[in-house]
């Protein structure tokens, strides 16, 4: 196993914020999966009958995911440029 390059122990608030934003961005699809499977779980298997309510629900979730991703994107984008060269690793 290669020795990991040294990383600073504490970060400037800007990079700290950005990493938490990246964490949130990673959580988003997990959250999305839960939301998209929710209707299948609460409806009883015998009567898995979808209604227009479901249609609206799914599109609502979809729009929500898009909106949150859109809110995250600028921060991650700007940060990406600032942290270029000393990019963090992924864990």
């Amino acid at each position, binding site marked *: 196993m290669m020795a990991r390059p040294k990383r600073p122990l504490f970060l400037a608030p800007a990079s700290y914020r950005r990493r938490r934003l990246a964490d949130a961005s990673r959580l988003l699809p997990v959250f999305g999966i839960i939301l998209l499977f929710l209707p299948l779980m609460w409806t009883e298997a015998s009567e898995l*009958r*979808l209604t227009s309510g479901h249609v*609206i629900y799914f599109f609502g979730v979809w729009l929500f995911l898009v909106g949150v991703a859109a809110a995250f994107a600028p921060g991650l984008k700007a940060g990406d440029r600032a942290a270029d060269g000393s990019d963090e690793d992924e864990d």
Partner: protein
Amino acid sequence: MPFNLLVTACLVYVLILFTVAFVVERRARAGRLGWLRSPVVYTLSLSIYCTAWTFYGAVGYAARSGLEFLTIYFGPTLVFVGWWWLLRKLVRIGRQYRVTSIADLISSRFGKSNTLGVIVTVIAVVAATPYIALQLQSVVLSFGVFASATEGSVAVDAGRTAFWVAVGLAFFTILFGTRNLDVKEQHHGIVTAIAVEAVVKLVALVAVGSFVVWGIAGGLSAIIDKIDASGLTAGAVQPGRWAGLIFLSAAAVITLPRMFQVLVVESDNEDQLASASWAFPFYLLAMSLFIMPIAVVGLDRMPSGANPDMFVLTLPLAEGQGALAMLAFLGGFSSATSMVIVESIALATMISNHVVIPLWLRLRPAEAGGEDLRAVVLNARRLAIVAVLALGYGYYRLSGGSAALASIGLIAFLGMAQVLPAMLGGLFWRGATRTGAILGLVTGFTVWAYASFLPSFGPGAALSEAVFQGGLFGIGWLRPQALFGTEGMDPLVHALFWSMTLNALAFCLGSLLTFPGPVERLQGAAFVNVFQGGSGPQRWARGQVEPEQLLAMAQRILGEEVSLALFEAAARDQGKAGFLPDPTPAFLDALEARLSGTVGAATAHAMLSQLVGRAMVTVEDLMAVASEAAQIMEYSARLETRESELTRTAGALREANEKLQQLSVQKDAFLSQISHELRTPMTSIRAFSEILTEGVLPAEQVTRYGRIIHDEAKRLTRLLDDLLDLSVLENGMVQLNLGLANLHQMLETALTAARQTRPERNFLVTRDPASEAIFLRTDADRLTQVFINLISNARKYCTADQPELRISLRQRGGKLTVDFVDNGKGIPKESQSLIFEKFARLSDANRAGGAGLGLAICREIMTSLGGSVAYLPGQGGAAFRVTVPLRLEKLAA
């Protein structure tokens, strides 16, 4: 609506696309891309995910299975909003290592293995062929819809239409996809044309949808009522299919060759991806927003036998909206053509880089420099494009063009998704090996073909009835749709489950049990740790290759002008004039990266290996790199040592300088002192001799004055004797009188002699007579002189009220040390280094008539006797140590 008008509109539309592509190509060549590299164009180009299948087929899908069609969009949505997980890394690797296709990615990750490149290429071609057929079919169907709607026109020959569409697409693709060999496999013209098509299909679908909702159904609430009433949503959603399809579409969006092309290969920067992370899901949302209403209204309005796949066209036609139908037709046409164009470019790149060029190089290896390989690459691509389209057309003719659009699309997705384990494993797991990847891919592909692809032709076509019923070779648990006895599963979920599970299992086991080669390990580390900086590992040892040969090879691939510029720049970086840089590892790396942007990593590596004469990085190379590093470290350590040495020397010099300055001050002081010392007796001698010459003095006076003159003369003589003695000793001209002498005797003599100095003081002398019974072979007189001097000094300068002197001896290694320690206040630290110098004398308060030569003489004597005299600090008083050899051999002096 006249059919001819439709054909004309079609041609005009294609002409517009041509113009767009052409203009953008020209701008790109001039380097004026500007907004064309913006995230908007990037996002829109991603929309080739929505093919004719989406445009027409989604409505049919919704009409048949209700909400399930949404799963096809949920997968990509999840992948894109979670771009920080995977897409970011994928795009970074793609840009950093100039990846040209998904086959190139897999092959270069696993040690630039061309075998893997070929396997992925084969999978991609097999999985894409039905999909391309699907696009041709949709175009033909949509033509058919218009033809049948137009009374009195010629019936459309489906086969001929498909043929001409395929020819037209091949022409367009070849024209813009293979105009030149780019350093990085990018096609700005085509990407922009696709972005335009993306807008057209979105506008068309939204227009039809809006017409359906507000023009036919009568508003939003009405359409919601209709949806509930239609019973369309009643179609039970199976959780297994729901999950499986979301997974499948998520896998497809990153593994489909066309998606990889626009997502990774055509990507310019990561900002584009950040914007696309929400904009692309939003585009998908907009595309599917009206699918459900169109399906519901279509089922409601259209005759019962109507093909729901064509509702997007037939609904406006039935309502007499010719222009809207035309727009919808163009939207569908756009969807089909853009998919086919990008897919065939991506496949052609793979085929030429991983199949044709390696074969070509193997068949004609010797002609290095002879021919321009660019022509070969370009022609290979053109042929590959034609071949891919021909395959699609052939499949269309064979399958008869009847099956529902969506089912074959999902089967194609699953085929391509077999690349997923190798890809994810390669990106996140350093332990993934080439053998594992090959095993996984082959296993997955075989299971897919057997359980999903071949059965899709129907029983009795590719697989016989017997196999369907009784399994392969009559083995029950090998039935294609009930592997290992898993009966009753949905066929697609069944194939998905078994192919992906067995694929991943084979991949993991293969990786765990095999050992990767050096290149594989380097590439693995470089890919997995792509964010941890660096430009990747050094892959080349210093080559034994002539730069001319490299230049010749580069010219074959990059062209003369580009290669010359590249080589000249490299030579300049190395500080050389001309066009031929040294084949340093760094240069070879850069050259390989450049070449791999054109012909793929595996081929570029193989070509360089041919010249450099090394197929792989060997362990020896790694050792060489390591020892080079070790040398550098050693060198820097040496530098450090030298530096500290210099520092020490400088310190010594500074000390010496200080000493010199002090000495100079002392010398001045001594000169004035000695002139004073000489002058005082001289003055009294002169004065008294003057009195004597007058001759009128009584006899006793004469005697007194005579004694004074005598004493003064003696003092002068002593002073001059000392000076003479010192100079003799210093010049090494001293004559030693060697003989055996008793130390006790010498000390006795010295103590007795020294008693004359300040005789009024009563000294307590501590001695150890037993240890003093030693015979030395030395110059007894000289050594005694040293002892006398040291003891006299103690008598002179010891300030204690009850002075004490301790004399102790020690024998060590043929040497004898004699310590003289008194109980005075000692000598201050700053003076310790000066007391042995000539003319040195401490404060005037301690003046006792000496001229300050005693210790200097002692030191010279001890040097002559092969020993030394030194001041011992920290003994509670002044302490001197005399070291003398027990047996002094005759010195050269």
